């Protein structure tokens, strides 16, 4: 009853490991998949190896987490083996997350990771903690977001999800722009901000990068509103991500219009068992409220 679909790819349940969490190695992705995730997403991959920001890169606070890992990764070529391992060994679909600093490079990375045959490619155009290097994320401009989408679509035959940023005045026009250029689905939202945490005794920002993307329970209401708006403006499937820690949170995402729900920071609160627990909790709420499928529950919050 929990099965769902994203751009033609069937997921056994709607919980998806979000990019950036436990997604460095094929072994780790496989472990999370076996622990019950309906799909698993790799950490974002670039064409060339990237060092990322100096530590501290992750810090928690009372309502969530701030991170500025800075897109560290071993580069597309080295990572092919990790994706390949996950595709071969994970019981659920594998999503390869990619990013680049130019439109041309987006095409190249998409082409490169396609060799490992992931089930879906997630196009990360919305990381908020590399502004110093890359300027404003591509997801902040509907025109650029559209061009990236078009380029990636041309470079691969694998269905693509475009990951959008909440850090815009209105997310709907961006969703519409990527939908028009052939995006097969949308992941929303990336982390919020960037924000900042300051330690009083140290009298300075906690993250070495000073600022970082905010995730966790604090951002759930922002995520819900974005998903609600995207669902209203496009017919694309959505992975609703942002502060999902319980089955109740996940159901809220689905009611706003998501077909699946991303879980990232939630792993910190509940361990990798979170995927099977959230699935059970969703099922419990569906039984209680009388829904027979995820599809039936999807977008119900939009009804008059």
């Amino acid at each position, binding site marked *: 009853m929990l099965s769902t679909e994203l751009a033609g790819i069937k997921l056994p349940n709607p919980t998806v490991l979000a990019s950036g969490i436990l997604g*460095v190695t094929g072994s780790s992705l496989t472990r*999370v998949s076996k622990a019950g995730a309906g799909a698993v997403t790799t950490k974002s991959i670039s064409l060339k190896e990237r060092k990322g920001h100096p530590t501290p*890169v992750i810090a*928690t606070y009372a309502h969530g987490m701030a991170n500025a*890992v800075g897109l560290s990764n071993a580069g597309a070529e080295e990572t092919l083996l990790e994706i390949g391992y996950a595709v071969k060994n994970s019981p659920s679909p594998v999503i390869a997350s990619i990013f680049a600093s130019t439109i041309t490079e987006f095409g190249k990375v998409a082409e490169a990771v396609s060799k490992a045959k992931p089930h879906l490619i997630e196009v990360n155009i919305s990381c908020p903690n590399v502004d110093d290097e890359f300027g404003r994320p591509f997801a902040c401009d509907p025109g650029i977001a559209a061009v990236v989408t078009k380029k990636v679509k041309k470079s691969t035959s694998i269905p693509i999800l475009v990951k959008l940023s909440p850090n815009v005045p209105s997310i709907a026009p961006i969703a519409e722009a990527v939908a028009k250029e052939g995006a097969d689905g949308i992941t929303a939202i990336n982390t919020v901000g960037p924000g900042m945490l300051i*330690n009083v*005794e140290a009298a*300075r920002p906690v993250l*070495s990068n000073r600022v970082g993307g905010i995730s966790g329970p604090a951002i759930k209401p922002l995520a819900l509103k974005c998903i609600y708006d995207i669902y209203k403006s496009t017919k694309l499937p959505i992975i609703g991500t942002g502060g999902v820690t319980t089955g109740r949170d996940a159901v809220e995402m689905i009611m706003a219009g998501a077909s699946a729900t991303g879980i990232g920071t939630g792993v910190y609160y509940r361990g990798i068992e979170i995927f099977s627990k959230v699935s059970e909790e969703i099922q419990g709420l569906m039984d209680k409220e009388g829904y027979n499928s995820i599809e039936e529950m999807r977008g119900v919050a939009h009804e008059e």
Partner: protein
Amino acid sequence: MKNDEFIVVRLEGVHKESEDTTTLTIPYDLNSKPGQFVMLWLPGKGEKPISISGEKDGKFQITICAIGSFSEAVSKLRKGDKIGFRGPFGTHYTIPKESTSLAMVGGGYGSAPLAYLAEQAALGGKKVYFIEGARTKSRLLFSERMKISGAVLLTCTDDGSEGPKCYSPDVLKDLLENHKIDKVFSCGPEIMMKRVVEISQNAGIPSEISMERYMKCGIGVCGQCCVDELGLCMCKEGPIISGELALKIREFGSYTRGSTGKKSEL
């Protein structure tokens, strides 16, 4: 809600263990167990996972060997300087209740968590054989502490400047042949620990080792320290794991991943 914010305090003491190794005493009741680590933060200099080398009377200690710019910065710290930490994180060594005699095998600065463990074991009335290997005499750590704890100290060096000229697993092998040991604990270079595990297993004795991997978050989310092929996070399901489990980890004693996730031979 769960939270692991940094705690920032002033250092109570800075002690040079050897030419390049420093122990910091931090006035905080961490409630740690031997084998666990903290993420040490030097504002402006970075953050690194460091294993705890002792805790008592509301203070804990960490011991750092100067090998990079971060540990260089640590070696310049003075009493009263502010440092930050979060933790304790990770798994810990476990002393079996029924045991009477324990062996510990440390290599280089890997002796740090074992010194903490040895002191606790001795307090619990266990007989402790502390095998410590180092390249040369000046790099042997914690000898005084071990003597005070009542542990039997067995040292060896690569150059023969203190104790026999051999490697610590050789000393362990000899010990296991001549004494009844209930459990073996190890921390140090992975090639050494692999031999320790194999020697213990051949003798039918359980062992625990400390598996160090590149860590960024310390809280089981970033995935940087996950090992092949079990996918276990060494910051959460480790660093202390049984020798039996270590042998099931394909990369144990063979390769590791760096800060980008790229593999390199050990």
